């Protein structure tokens, strides 16, 4: 890792001295959220607090001829674990020529056309941040990667290589009350794919305009970012190992104007390579995922967005057969519907928004209303809530039933 990124670090120290133009921006932010159910997770350190931090983000941007560099660093004071920390959210160098470009370093990717539903966006996410009422940008985790863009006449191509695996971050029991299928097994460890050449992840996006629609094809070769669970002895488990099975994804997306709004379509085949037969209950089966979305402005500064998402499990009979008695069973077709309403007021200084997930198959939901007000060009604050419920104790939102929280963000930007 150091071999690749040490030169980058040197560059960031040296580059500003030679940069033709350099800019410094960022923000100071306080972000707090509290559980309102009165319940507390077993390993809680913060009591009712789900999240509490102050941070300063510094963004430095500059250029030297065909090269540009960018760093985004958060200096954090965190209250639940009483930590002070530095987080390098992004740090990369860009090179651009007429027909191709390259980005090397820690960076973020957002692919696909879903609104908070990701099929071909296989890059690491932070769902703990999302469920805690942190600003949207913290849903995305930066990854150390090389991205090459090619721009021949007929199409555009993005090639991404990620040498160091990074998983999704899910809510944990120090902040959230979660479902645990084996609460008595205390010994647990996690095994991430080693940074070896054969474990390098590759992602490709090929995109162009087709009849006024934005069309894209995607290929990914890497790993599930949600861990699978392996136990030492299925009959009397004493030790759990979390690991990340191999995964390939092949997909497409389309987005364009239709019926006086924006129509979005996305699909993908999840090839779960370590359980193609579907007989290993610990590794997810292969799936076909699809999404249709529609977005429309109904009146000035008011938009509505709806989505329907389906996740179809292949080899379902084998999956059912592999489950041990009593363990929760996923549906063959998991469905999710979303609704987003956004209204701006007072010359767009006030934003009222509502986002909801509802699963017709699992019968669980998440509701996120938010009020955001820009006091000036530099200061804004937001207050909102996350309400979870329905379904069963093990379903995605149902298990967060006791984690309803309210949050606030205050930010000074410069």
């Amino acid at each position, binding site marked *: 890792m150091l071999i690749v990124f040490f030169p980058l670090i040197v560059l960031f120290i040296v580059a500003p001295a030679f940069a033709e*133009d350099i800019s410094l*921006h960022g*923000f100071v932010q306080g972000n707090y959220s509290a559980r309102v159910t009165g319940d507390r997770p077993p390993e809680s350190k913060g009591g009712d607090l789900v999240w509490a931090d102050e941070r300063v983000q510094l963004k430095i941007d500059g*250029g030297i001829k065909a090269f*540009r560099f960018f760093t985004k660093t958060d200096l954090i004071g965190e209250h639940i674990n009483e930590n002070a920390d530095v987080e390098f959210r992004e740090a990369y160098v*860009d090179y*651009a020529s007429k027909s191709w*470009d390259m980005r090397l370093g820690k*960076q*973020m*990717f*957002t692919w696909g056309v879903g609104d908070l539903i990701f099929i071909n966006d296989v890059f690491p996410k932070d769902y703990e941040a999302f469920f805690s009422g942190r600003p*949207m*940008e913290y*849903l*995305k985790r930066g990854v150390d990667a090389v991205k090459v*863009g090619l*721009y021949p006449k007929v199409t*555009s191509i993005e090639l991404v290589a990620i040498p160091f695996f990074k998983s999704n971050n899910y809510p944990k029991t120090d902040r959230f009350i979660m479902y645990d299928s084996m609460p008595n097994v205390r010994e647990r460890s996690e095994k991430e794919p080693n940074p070896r050449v054969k474990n390098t992840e590759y992602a490709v996006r090929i*995109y162009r305009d087709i009849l*006024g629609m*934005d069309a894209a094809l995607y290929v990914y070769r890497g790993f599930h970012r949600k861990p699978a669970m392996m136990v030492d002895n299925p009959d009397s488990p004493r030790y759990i190992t979390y690991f990340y099975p191999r995964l390939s994804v092949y997909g497409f997306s389309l*987005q*364009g*104007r239709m019926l*006086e*709004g*924006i129509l*979005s379509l996305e699909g993908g085949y999840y090839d779960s390579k370590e359980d193609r037969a579907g007989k290993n209950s610990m590794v997810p089966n292969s799936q076909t995922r699809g999404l249709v979305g529609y*977005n*429309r*402005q109904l*009146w*000035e*500064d008011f*938009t509505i967005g709806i989505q329907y998402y389906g996740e179809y499990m292949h080899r379902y009979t084998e999956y059912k057969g592999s489950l041990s008695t009593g363990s929760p069973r996923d549906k063959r077709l998991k469905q999710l519907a979303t609704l987003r309403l956004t209204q*701006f007021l007072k*010359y*767009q*200084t006030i934003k009222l928004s509502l986002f909801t997930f509802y699963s017709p198959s699992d019968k669980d939901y998440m509701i996120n209303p938010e009020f955001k007000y*820009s006091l*000036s*060009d*530099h200061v*804004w604050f937001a207050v909102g809530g996350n309400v979870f419920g329905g379904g069963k104790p093990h379903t995605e939102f149902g298990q967060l039933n006791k984690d309803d929280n309210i949050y606030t963000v205050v*930010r000074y*930007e*410069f």
Partner: protein
Amino acid sequence: MIRYLIVLLIMLLPFEAFALTAEEVMKKSQAAFLYQGKDFKARVMMKLISKGGAERIRELTMLRKNYGDVGGDQKYFIYFFQPADVRDMTFMVYKYPAKDDDRWLFVPAINMVRRIAAQDKRSSFVGSDFTYEDVSGRDIEDDTHAIVKEERLGARDCYVVKSTPKAGDVDYSYKISWIDKTNFLPLKEEYYDRKGELYKVFTADEIKDVKGFPTVTKRTMKNLQSGHRTEVTYTKANYNIGLPDDAFTERYLRKPERRWID
């Protein structure tokens, strides 16, 4: 003899001018105001000023390229400098005269490009008193036009044109425009609401010559009913800078070239 000819010509001039129909005046005005040059670039400073005097700033670079004739397709690219929470955001519009625009927004915080719903061209542009249509133009065919009179506005001779929207889904019932007879720039526009009361006024406050094109470099839109107004200043305005087609693509939406936005 020549003297008589000149006198004759001068006598004919107003009649010549009157020969222009209201549609032709508006078309010439559109050409002068929104379609000059092959392409255009400006650094735009918008001041949003509330009734109480509180100011908010929107600073951006706007690029525009024409495709086809006056009144035809255009592409716009906008890069935001201020306020801080939208810095580095970019916004791209493919404008078509007879149908809805295509609009894309790039959100740098999560490196995401999104299409945005755009069927209402009368929506406020970035929270200002200007609408999208005020920035990129309104189709001449969407209104019926009539020259109501000719008069001087300050030192300039103007056509005064009344434009009435054909459809009822517009926020004003009619608009009166003062169009400069010489350069065809709109010097003033008055918007009347459904009750026939004046509610918005546009004024061209400064006109400069840029590469031979008279250009409105300062303008104001004032909402008389709310007391809110937006003052816009163009700096670094320039025409025919040779903007390539691919400046208006996703590649540069995500990573604009400095030479076009600075």
